[in-house]
């Protein structure tokens, strides 16, 4: 397996890479450039990097103002302080007027690790999903993160990009063509469909192996664009497998699992079980341990898959 890379690393590199192509790309951060990796862009283009200090609400609206004067701003902080603290700024100054601002939110989910619950944002997808017209992309690996940044630059309108702190395997190669709103079949199967996002794609692929050992055929789908959801693919998976498990490093309330349930309940009623954070807060610990502690690991997904299959008529 290739070296593991955190999606935030790929984010910083992609900003620097595409900053060389797009003169109007500007990057803002709130005193976390070293952690969000926007520091990589800062080093390459110091004149187009603006530290806003520890004042996220101002940063979000400064980015908005810049977008209205010809710039493509990426505003970065941890997911907790971007989507969380600045929800209302994003809703009213970016979402409602549909301004061309990109929010690069890193350190999403519990794999922030030792910093603990105050910094582990498991609610950001739910918050962003409620904003009309907001595109939400949660890349599964470094390759997809890079392409998501490029797609966000080329797309005119608000985009929320969700990146992680923990290093994850590279799943995609150079032939991958990322498109906003398009899910990707990672592996085919017929008994149950594992619909995963972000770091959970790796876990779902591992769960597929565990299930195969028991003679169960699992399909694995990567949904990196959570909004707009690739409903066609979700419905096709439900039709084919008759049982679905959603997998996300996010609360089961309002995230990918909820989006899939909302889609299927209207278009193709199907048993769906959700792997995610079960309406609770995170805690301190090594990231990998927390993945197991919160039952986001492959073994937990495999158990849920069997339970979902049992719900089939």
């Amino acid at each position, binding site marked *: 397996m290739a070296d593991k890379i955190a999606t935030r690393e790929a984010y910083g590199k992609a900003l620097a890479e595409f900053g060389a192509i797009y003169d109007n790309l500007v990057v803002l951060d709130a005193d976390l450039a070293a952690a969000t990796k926007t520091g990589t862009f800062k080093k390459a283009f110091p004149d187009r990097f603006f530290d806003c*200090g520890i004042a996220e*609400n101002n940063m979000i*609206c*400064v980015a*908005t*103002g*810049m977008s209205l*004067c010809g710039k493509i701003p990426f505003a970065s902080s941890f997911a907790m302080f971007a989507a969380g603290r600045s929800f209302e700024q994003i809703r009213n100054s970016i979402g409602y*007027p549909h301004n061309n601002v990109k929010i690069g939110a890193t350190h999403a989910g519990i794999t922030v690790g030792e910093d603990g619950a105050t910094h582990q944002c498991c609610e950001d997808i739910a918050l962003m999903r409620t904003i009309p017209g907001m595109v939400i992309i949660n890349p599964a690996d470094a390759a997809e993160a890079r392409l998501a940044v490029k797609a966000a630059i080329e797309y005119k309108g608000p985009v929320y990009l969700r990146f992680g702190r923990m290093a994850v395997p590279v799943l995609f190669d150079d032939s991958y063509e990322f498109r906003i709103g398009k899910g990707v079949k990672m592996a085919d199967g017929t008994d149950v469909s594992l619909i995963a996002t972000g770091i959970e794609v790796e876990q779902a692929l591992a769960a597929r192996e565990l299930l195969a050992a028991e003679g169960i055929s699992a399909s694995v789908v990567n949904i990196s664009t959570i909004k707009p959801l690739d409903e066609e693919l979700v419905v096709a998976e439900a039709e084919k497998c008759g049982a679905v498990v959603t997998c996300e490093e996010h609360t089961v309330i309002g995230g990918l699992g909820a989006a899939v349930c909302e889609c299927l309940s209207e278009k193709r009623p199907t048993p769906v079980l959700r792997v995610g954070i079960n309406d609770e807060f995170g805690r301190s610990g090594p990231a990998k341990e927390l993945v197991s502690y919160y039952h986001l690991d492959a073994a937990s997904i495999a158990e849920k898959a069997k339970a979902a299959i049992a719900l089939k008529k």
Partner: protein
Amino acid sequence: MDTKRKTELQEIARQIRVGIIDAVYSAKSGHPGGSLSIADVLTYLYFEELNIDPKNPDWEGRDRLVLSKGHCAPGLYSALAHRGYFPVEDLKTFRKTSSYLQGHPDMKHTPGVDMTSGSLGQGASTSCGMALANKLDKTSVRVYAILGDGETEEGQVWEAAMFAGHYKLSNLCWLVDFNGLQIDGPIAEVMNPTPYPEKFSAFGWNVIECDAHDFDSIEAAYKAARACTDKPSVIISHSVKGKGVSYMENNVSWHGAAPNDEQYEQAMKDLGER
């Protein structure tokens, strides 16, 4: 300012005030008090100060104005209508379901509105972003924002003030409409945000004061702002809430209320329409 021009501006300001009352009266809701207190300032900005083209509202090289105290949309709409962005008659559609004149400014549907606003504090920051982008591009565009005095109780205003001072946004000029009243009462009693000059000076701003209802004073203030090339400028604009309508002046209950038929007639008399 020469007497002729001053007389012309006073007449435009009077018409803008009539438009404010017409809009709020037609809508049976809205915010007349703080709209009337900035009517003269809006007149000066739209008819003297701003480099704009009403026939080309999206022109990239235009000066920008953010009404950060977005609830005073009737004032902004009336100024825009009188400046030729849309028909003055449309002011009477304000707040109606089919109208493009939303209760708070909506940049997507109203020509001349440079930024959606209404949630206090956000426009202050947005104006900083506009100024920064133009500074980066070395344009001659100037960026203006109007804040309420009550609005300065929002923490985000001071985040933005710190930012503008830090980046020395000399192409940015805020005006704080210091009418002294907010919904719950006098700002000094609700949550005193003053003293302004000391606070803004400490944040690295060029501080100017003016009489909000005297065109000579307003002109001098904006000229002083233009003359400052190393700091953002803020004009502390001493105003009378409800200015021009006798029973609304300095009366906090007219922050967000519409006149009834009788009150409307009185307002029109006060404004010289009857």
